């Protein structure tokens, strides 16, 4: 578990440090599909938050659900 955290942190760091030179392989004008609302991680925040709460209240497990990113990549 600690190894996993360390690896994840290291990947994030290297992404930050080494990210400047890599060219994106999906061009911004190819993002029509990714910008579609059906490809969003959280299309209906209110409904999603509610069902997450329903599970959280009835299960022993919790967490790990947040995601943001994708979309149109504009600006």
């Amino acid at each position, binding site marked *: 578990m600690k190894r996993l955290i360390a690896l994840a942190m290291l990947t994030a760091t290297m*992404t930050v440090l080494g990210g400047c030179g890599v060219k994106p392989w999906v061009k911004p004008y190819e993002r029509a599909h990714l910008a579609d609302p059906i490809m969003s991680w959280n299309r209906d925040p209110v409904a999603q938050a509610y069902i997450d709460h329903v599970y959280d209240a009835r299960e022993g497990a919790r967490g790990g659900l947040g995601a943001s*990113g994708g979309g149109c990549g504009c600006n």
Partner: protein
Amino acid sequence: MRRLIVGLLLGSVTAAQAAVLPEDRADAMYHEYSGGGVTVNGPSILVRKKVGDNVSVVGNYYVDSVSSASIDVKLSASKYTERRTERTLGVDYLRGNAIMSLSYTNSVESDYDANTANVSISQDMFGDLTTVTLGFGRGWDTVGQSTDPSFKEPVDRRNYRLGLSQILTKNLILSLNYEAITDEGLLNNPYRSYRFYSGPSNDQFQLASENFKYPNTRTSGAARISLKYYLPWRGAVHGSYRYFSDTWGIQADTYEAGYTHTLDSGWVLDFKYRYYTQTKADFYADIFPREDAQNFMARDKELSTYQAQTVGFGVSYDFLRNGWGFLDRGSLNLDFDHMRFHYDNFRDATAAGYDAGQEPLYEFSANVTRAFISLWY
């Protein structure tokens, strides 16, 4: 270490490119959960609006009206009703290609107060193909008990979140999430009790007079991977897996798969299946040999070994496709989920005619409904 990462992220923000704030929208939802003797329903209202060019503000008002005669309530108490009100205020600040979010949530009911503060920062990189998110949350709860007004115990919560969203191809997106949560304080439910064998031939049981035999700390970790793929006819298929484990000995696997289908006329259909399986906490048992068998004892079914399956269906209709006045878009939505819980080592102690510990294993099903309208402006 954490501060170092955040520092690196903030430092690498450049002014040239920028990410995008969430859209302005308002949602009004009616939600209802019904099953296992419990009915909870109420509204949830959300409003989000940009203020200036770099800030988006969001507010949510949510109510749970509870009417409960659950298996736990039927065993040791009588049916009760309760009302919980939750209010959230949040702000998102956009700077360069990073978004910083702050939010505060207050939840109030007659015997439980919870306050949560969350902060997170989200950074786009690699030509906006990658989004890295770091989040931290802190919670302060006060646990009460309806029969004893002087009863007030605190619970301290902290959570740490790390997320990565990666565009793999023009049709495929991946997300990885890790969340660690630590709780400290009174972590048990003050209304529930464990039970133990009693009677001359140990075929009966007694409920313990108090339930305060939980560890007062709990640390958990959850790691989740999720994929979403765009289908050429304007559909999407997604799948995810989450692994959970904690210091109470619970391990859980969550599998989810779904398909979204769209019709040109503005209808969107969602189909979902979810399978959840969990193994029990170390100190959990349906029935203990005697009242003081262990230091820590629990009979909460949420800590038992069980499986739950959910089948979900949702339908949405875009009714304002060309806008109307200041509204850009609107949708009417109805989501319905059917859940089935099956417990491997939690028994229905209210069943009559059984020896203690021989009652049938408990199972129940529940229906969750969400009806809402969304408006974008």
